[in-house]
Structure formats: structure tokens, C-alpha cells
């Protein structure tokens, strides 16, 4: 018998460093409190964990509902091959958002309180309910992969019969809370910098989520095609890039409307920290992606598409950080930069996401088999015959 010594790759090394630091920061957070583990203060109560882990986490997981809607509501069968991985990415994304909330909440053991203690007037209450319900929807949408592996046919059938109501609920819940994350900031008109404060915030948040969802699916497909050495579905991803481009164009129009309505010209053309951050965000989050993604040559090339969508994602992240941090810093005059332990927890959570995706993709039928073993049965549902997939 051969004994295998696992090779430690560069990324493996980075992973374990992040895990080690993450465990240290976790212990610090839960033994010494938020004050010791973060740079948060009464003047700046929401930091990186809300700005990145929650606002970006939820947005980047939008691919799940966008692809599910394309496949089941709009009946675009071709996207079916990337649906399981998009659902898995979304499901893990939401679970990680909940993990991040457990770090950020002062009393994480009360996280379930919105279930029985209601305040329907609160945007946060609505977000809490939508995230709870949508995570449940994602768990159900993900469950067939598990049932397939376990060869449980009956529950698989039950879930399949619920597909359409589940997808419709998923789309509605996503629309609501993706936009509501923007609505959270509607109540601070006198604190948030005018460049970002707008009654359009919920619509801007929703549109950018619709744009970034497919971008994340593309990046995830690209990376897993390299990790699992499988062909990339370039023609599907190229089509999907049009969704990103169109959503960003609408976003562009709404933002221009804001600039005109709120008379932002003096703000955006002044040479300040905020205006520079705004232009950076607007360039890499909106203008450059539109320019690149409307070019069919770039859309058709693996690398080009990957780079273009990566820029979309980076611009999206910058936008969320600008709304949640840059736009509020000036007002508080306290200045905020996350403590290293905050950054370390964020990296830890992202690393856990990557590891979990890898593990699940290895063991469950997340990617369709390369060999054309798929059959189309009546009603247009595509199923992968279990025994054929797992016969080896």
C-alpha cells in the first residue's frame, strides 16, 4: 500500500494561515467582546462585517435567484447546467452571511428573536425574515443534490414538484431583501454623504445585485473549471454576461438621474476623498464592465470574460463599502479603518466558503457529467439518471 503525503501548495499554505489567524480573532471576539476585536465605536457602529460580509455577501450570492429565474420562470433550458453550482454558491453565501452576523451581533444568541418579536416597520426586520426564508428556500433547492447522492428518490420527487413555487418565492424574497439592504440607509439622510444618499438606493442595490450575481457565477465557473479540470460553459457564460451588462446600463441611468435630481455635480467634481472613491466605484463597477461586456470578442474569450466579470465584482464590492463606510466616515469625523482582527475574520469566513464549496463539489453532483448522459423527459425537465452518474 502506498502512503500519500499531501502536498502543501501555495494556496493551501495561505488557507491555513488565514484559518490560524481567523481562529485567534474568533477567540478574541467571543472572549473579550466587540470592543477588543474591532475598531467600531459609538460614532461608527457598523464596520467591515456589515459592509463586506453582509452587504457584499448577500449581493454576491444573487446568482442563485437570477439563474433559477432564468431556468424555471423564463424556461431558458440552456442555463440548467450551471444552476446547481449557482445554487450551491448562493446557499453557502447566505450561510456565511449568517455566520458573519453571529460575529457582528452584540448578542448573537438572540439572533432568532425576529421570529417571535415583530416590528414590521423596521427594514432590518424585513431583511431578517427574507434572509431566513430565502436561506430555507436555497436549502430546499440544494437538497436534491444531497438526495441524489444518497439515492433517496422520494424526497427528490417531492422537492421537484415544489420547484416552481420555490423559485417564485426565491425571486420575490431576493428582490425584497437585496433592495432592502439599500433601504437600510434611507433612514440616515443627514448622515450619509449626498453622493450615495438617494431615494433610489433600494433600486440601485437591487440592480447591482442582479448584475453581480451572473458575474460571480462566471468567476465560480472559471475557477472550478481550473480546479476540477473540466470544460467551461463559455457560450452560456457569454450570454449571461449580457444580463450583467443590461442591469448595469439601467443602473447607470438611475445613477445619472440621481446626479441630476440631487444636484450632485459640485460634489462629484470636487477633488475630495468621497468624489475620488465615487469615480473609482463608478468606473470599475459600471462604466468599464459595460464597455467590456458589450464587446462580443471579450465575451467570447475565457480570460476576457473572467477579467471583465472580476472587475464587475470588485466595483460592486467598492460600491457597498462606499455606502457603508466611506459615505458615513466624513459625517462621524471619527474615521474608521477595520482592525486587523476584523479583516482576519472576514478572510476566515471567505476561506471557509471556498473550502466548503470545494468539498461539496467534490462529493455531490454539483457539475453536470461531461459525457452527454442527460436525458430530456416529458415536461421539459432535464434529469441526470442517478445510476448512470454514479455507476463507477
Amino acid at each position, binding site marked *: 500500500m502506498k502512503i500519500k503525503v499531501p502536498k502543501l501548495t501555495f494556496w493551501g499554505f495561505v488557507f491555513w494561515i488565514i484559518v490560524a489567524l481567523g481562529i485567534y480573532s474568533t477567540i478574541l471576539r*467571543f*472572549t*473579550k*467582546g*466587540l*470592543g*477588543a476585536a474591532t475598531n*467600531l*465605536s*459609538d*460614532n461608527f*457602529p*457598523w464596520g467591515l462585517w456589515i459592509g463586506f460580509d453582509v452587504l457584499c455577501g448577500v449581493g454576491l450570492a444573487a446568482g442563485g435567484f437570477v439563474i433559477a*429565474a432564468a431556468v*424555471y*420562470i*423564463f*424556461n431558458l433550458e440552456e442555463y440548467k447546467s450551471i444552476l446547481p453550482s449557482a445554487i450551491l454558491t448562493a446557499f453557502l453565501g447566505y450561510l456565511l452571511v449568517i455566520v458573519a452576523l453571529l460575529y*457582528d*451581533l*452584540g*448578542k*448573537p444568541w*438572540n*439572533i432568532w*428573536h*425576529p421570529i417571535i*418579536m*415583530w*416590528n*414590521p*416597520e*423596521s*427594514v*432590518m*426586520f*424585513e*431583511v*431578517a425574515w427574507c434572509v431566513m426564508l430565502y436561506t430555507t428556500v436555497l436549502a430546499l433547492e440544494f437538497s436534491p443534490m444531497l438526495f441524489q447522492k444518497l439515492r433517496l428518490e422520494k424526497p427528490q420527487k417531492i422537492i421537484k414538484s415544489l420547484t*416552481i413555487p420555490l423559485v*417564485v418565492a426565491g*425571486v*420575490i424574497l431576493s*428582490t*425584497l431583501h437585496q*433592495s432592502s439592504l439599500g*433601504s*437600510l440607509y*434611507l*433612514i*440616515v*439622510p*443627514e*448622515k450619509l454623504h449626498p453622493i450615495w444618499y438617494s*431615494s433610489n438606493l*433600494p433600486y440601485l442595490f437591487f440592480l447591482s445585485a442582479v448584475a453581480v450575481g451572473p458575474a460571480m457565477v462566471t468567476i465560480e465557473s472559471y475557477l472550478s473549471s481550473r480546479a476540477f479540470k473540466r470544460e467551461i460553459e463559455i457560450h452560456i457564460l457569454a450570454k449571461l454576461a449580457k444580463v450583467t451588462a443590461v442591469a448595469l446600463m439601467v443602473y447607470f441611468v438611475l445613477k445619472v438621474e440621481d446626479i441630476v435630481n440631487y444636484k450632485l455635480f459640485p460634489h462629484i467634481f470636487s477633488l475630495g476623498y468621497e468624489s475620488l472613491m465615487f469615480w473609482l466605484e463608478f468606473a470599475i463597477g459600471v462604466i468599464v464592465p459595460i464597455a467590456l461586456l458589450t464587446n462580443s470578442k471579450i465575451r467570447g474569450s475565457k480570460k476576457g470574460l473572467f477579467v471583465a466579470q472580476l472587475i464587475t465584482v470588485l466595483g460592486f464590492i467598492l460600491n457597498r463599502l462606499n455606502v457603508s463606510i466611506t459615505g458615513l466616515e466624513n459625517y462621524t469625523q471619527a474615521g474608521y479603518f477595520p482592525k486587523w482582527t476584523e479583516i482576519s475574520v472576514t478572510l476566515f469566513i471567505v476561506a471557509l466558503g471556498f473550502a466548503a464549496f470545494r468539498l461539496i463539489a467534490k462529493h455531490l453532483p454539483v457539475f453536470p457529467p461531461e459525457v452527454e448522459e442527460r436525458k430530456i423527459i416529458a415536461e*421539459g425537465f432535464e434529469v441526470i439518471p442517478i445510476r448512470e452518474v454514479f455507476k463507477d
Partner: protein
Amino acid sequence: MKYGILVDITRCIGCYACEEACAERWGNPITEEHRLSAIQNTAVEDHDGIYVPRLCMHCEKPTCASVCPVGAFQKTKLGPVVYDPLKCLGCRYCIQACPFNVPKYQWNKLNPKVTKCDMCYERIQKGGVPACVEACPAEARTFGTREELIEEAKRRINENPETYYPHIFGLKEAGGTSILYLADRPLNKLGFKVNLPEVPLSHFTEQIMSKIPNYIFWGGTLLFGIWWITKRRDEVQRLQKKLKEMEENNKKGNGK
């Protein structure tokens, strides 16, 4: 009956008796910080020699109560806005949203609470007055019903127009507050915000939140509708294809 406090900045002498009475009421240590914090629910700020007592404004339509996902804040019938730490999950949206920057947080505790003035709710319920009002030797804080206090404020402005800047702060700011301020100059020169709207801040989220039930109904109907149409279109296409094949087969059959 809604109670409130009229704070007359022109009368405050900066003796900090209110701070001490408040610290005693909450069991907090005495500090020399003189600013609102997790251990100071009232504080006398020094703005270039002018003493400005600060405390929770006890808004008529409180932003904290509107944003709290679990309803840990309540506007009571007697006027005070009170906080229930047992409901709180520590999301700190109240701290983020309060237009007067009042709620503070126990950042270094493992079971942290939001801290703020509750207008000595227990004492008021028993017919008493808040500790800070009782302790003030200069009568800079007057306790009474909001209506009485507004009349009193107007009377003071009318009787001493040279002393007072003719504006009752809290009458309309953020939809009105139970704590009212009088001063000899605009309050924005004394650390208060100028850009507060006259409507409660919850107005801005209500506009969008009220659309949700309608959205769920119409959105759901629309999505099911699109699903039905696209599915039907596919079925029709498939049947047409089949029909064509059958026709071709028939032709072939006839040809033979």
C-alpha cells in the same frame, strides 16, 4: 398625558449635579468626560463656555423604535422612550440611525446593552420627576407635560426676547421630541444638527416598506404568469414539431 423636559441652556451653570444624579440613578461611575457614553446617559457639554445639557430627546416618533428589528424600543404613553435589553440582539441599527446620536453601546462587554436615558420612567410612573430635573439647582431643566412646556417656552421667549433666540428646538425637529431646548443662539452652533427634516425619519423607510405587500402579490402573479406563458410556448413548439414530423411521415407513407 405625555411628559417631557424643557432644557433652558441660558440657565445652565455647568455644575454637573444632573450628571451625578443620573450616574447614581443608573449605578454608573462619575466621570470627568462630560459627554454621552455608555456610562453617561446625560452629560453637560462645554461649547466655548456655554454649557449644553444633553440627554435622549425622546422623539414623538422615535427613529430607534422604528429601525429596531425586534421592537426593543418603545415610545411609552407617558412620553419616555424605553429600551428592553432582553429583546435586543445587538444589531446596533438604533445607534446608526438615531439623528441625535444618543444611544451608546457597551462595546467591551460580552453581554452588551444599548444605553440611553429613559427619562427616569420608573419615577415618572410613580408621579415623580426625573433625577436630573430634581438635582438641577439652576432650574435649567423643567419637567411637565409637553403642552405645558411648549407654553412655558413661548412665554420665556416673549417675555425676554433679548435673552432667547426665538426657536424651540424639538418642537418640529425629526417630527418633534419630548425634550425641548431653549438657547440664546441657534442650536446648530451648540453641537446640534441643522439638516434634520421636520418629518420623522421613519417617513423615508415607510414609503418603501408600504409597497411590500403589493409587490409580493403582483410580483408573484407576474412571475407565475411568465412561467405559464414560457412553458406553454415550449409545449406548443414541441407539439408543432411533432405534428410536422407526423405530416412528413405521412407524406413518405403516401409516396410509397
